[in-house]
């Protein structure tokens, strides 16, 4: 009853092309943003540091991969490495120019990642599907080799690790050991909101249509004058930009320091699973996917002991760990069978049902 399309008339094309044409959707979005910001003050350190910050970081990386794989239809296994490029670039920049604010460098570091991503995207003109995935795998291994073998990237740090130096914004530490989870969460949240908004603008406009055209029917797209190489490289660049920023956030605003193996192939698969489960070609799906793959195991780790202990069944920590893997695995299979197009499609179906509720159609 609260969610109705009826009576909301569009009298111009700008209103008709709005990304959220329904008033209820706009209110809902506003509420979500409000809740997200108030969680910084209501949530405890565990919630912010171990759940929400990583969730946002992974969501951003998933948005990046979704632009490439979901919207443009180019399979990539180099996400981890592109995140790494962002993180290492950010480290070099913030140590070389400490007087410039770190927020600037986080955004700039994405451009390095975008450049490298576009470079490794060049084969995409000739090869598709799994073969392209193998080509991006080369990026993954080559870049990871660079992270290990080029000590210049970590300023000749003996441990070979990236360490977050202290950096402040308006006098408040946001990067480094003294930055509180609360401030870091607010910074990450703001960056993710801004970048999600920009991504949403891109995919709803001309460029998004060109990407989807390449994905759905590349020959027809080319016959309509869409240049395949430029369009694909743009997708690679934008995608890698998002991954790069996500990588910088991961190291400096979540971990506080990291070694090269954070950006290994497992990370690439981790993000790819989020995109597939969440929904290919959907921005909100990226958030759903990150939530299911990252938050679900944490929730189970808390819920499972709470279920078993009152029943008097002793349960070992490693059993919980195994159960977590089993349940998350089963859920992934379940969701993929119920809706192969991901959680985003389930969400969409739910909204459509709600529009006509209580009638079936």
């Amino acid at each position, binding site marked *: 009853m609260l969610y109705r399309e009826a009576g909301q008339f569009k009298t111009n094309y700008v209103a008709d*092309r709005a990304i959220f044409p329904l008033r209820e959707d706009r209110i809902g979005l506003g509420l979500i943003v409000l809740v997200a910001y108030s969680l910084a003050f209501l949530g405890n350190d565990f919630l912010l540091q171990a759940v929400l910050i990583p969730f946002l970081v992974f969501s951003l990386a998933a948005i990046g991969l979704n632009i490439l794989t979901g919207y443009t239809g180019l399979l990539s296994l180099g996400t981890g490495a592109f995140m790494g490029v962002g993180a290492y670039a950010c480290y070099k920049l913030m140590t070389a120019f400490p007087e410039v604010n770190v927020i600037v460098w986080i955004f700039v570091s994405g451009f390095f990642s975008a450049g490298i991503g576009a470079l490794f995207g060049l084969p995409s003109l000739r090869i598709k599907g799994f073969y392209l995935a193998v080509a991006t795998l080369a990026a993954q291994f080559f870049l990871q080799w660079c992270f290990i073998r080029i000590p210049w990237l970590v300023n000749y740090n003996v441990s070979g690790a990236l360490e977050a130096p202290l950096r402040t914004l308006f006098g408040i530490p946001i990067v480094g050991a003294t930055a509180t989870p609360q401030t870091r969460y607010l910074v990450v949240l703001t960056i993710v909101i801004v970048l999600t908004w920009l991504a949403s*603008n*891109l995919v709803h406009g*001309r460029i998004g249509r060109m990407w989807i055209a390449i994905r*759905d029917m590349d020959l*027809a797209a080319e016959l309509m004058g869409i240049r395949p190489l430029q369009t694909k490289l743009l997708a690679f660049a934008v995608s890698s930009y998002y991954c790069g920023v996500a990588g910088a956030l991961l190291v400096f605003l979540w971990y506080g320091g990291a070694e090269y193996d954070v950006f290994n192939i497992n990370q690439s698969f981790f993000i790819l699973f989020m995109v597939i489960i969440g929904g290919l070609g959907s921005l909100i799906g990226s958030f759903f996917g990150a939530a299911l793959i990252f938050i679900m195991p944490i929730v189970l780790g808390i819920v499972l002991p709470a279920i078993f202990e009152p029943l008097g069944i002793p349960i070992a920590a490693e059993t919980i760990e195994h159960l977590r893997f089993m349940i998350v695995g089963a859920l992934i299979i379940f969701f993929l069978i119920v809706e192969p197009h991901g959680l985003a499609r389930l969400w969409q179906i739910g909204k459509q049902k709600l529009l006509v509720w209580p009638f079936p159609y």
Partner: protein
Amino acid sequence: MRAPDHPILAKGDVLLAVENVSLGFGGVKALTDVSFDIRKSEIRAIIGPNGAGKTSMLNCINGFYYPTEGSITFQGLKRPKMRPYEAARGGIARTFQNVALFKSMSTLDNIMAGRSIKMRSNFFWQLFRHGPAMREEVEHRKVVEEIIDFLEIQHIRKTPVGRLPYGLQKRVELARALAMEPELLLLDEPMAGMNLEEKEDMSRFIIEVNQQFGTTIALIEHDMGVVMDLSDRVVVLEYGRKIADGTPDEVKRDQRVIDAYLGVAH
């Protein structure tokens, strides 16, 4: 606005000339020494039995294939080897034998995608969906709405095209090609698999496009009734060779065409 780098053509001038084109794939010869022309604002049919090389001919015209021999002259300029998108930017649009729409997009977005080459706003404005980007979006939406009205597909404006019945998909594909405002429109079997009513609608649209916008149309079609009624001139291919060329009446009486379609008694 850049001045066109080709001579302005009047109705009846040669828009596209195919001269001695041959196309081979290894040992297979798809086309052998084919020559014909398409004049501005006419409806030109390319017919022939299955495997005659009709679609290969269209593929040469819009740059999918480059002829092994011979040349194609478009708007008075001899064409170098080019990619399909260059042909598209030059003003050649095309629909496909098997519908090649962007399945997940709505009808509206499909047609809007057809206007991608006309859109100029840069990445920066696209990023903010503001200023020139939004103005352009609205401006092109108006044109797209005109095409939607013209082809009578208002009711499916926001439906994902994957869900539409076949006849409507064909119509959306025509709409998408029209959105490019082409000089030359290539239609590859626009009526394949349609019932009588849908064929009548489609024929009406083809004639209206030709008359209202003056678009030159080259079409491949197997329905002889449609071909003879619609087209100004017909070229007939068989086994990759041209066997007849002329008005529908001339072609209909041509003995080689009758033989090609009905077979010869031995």
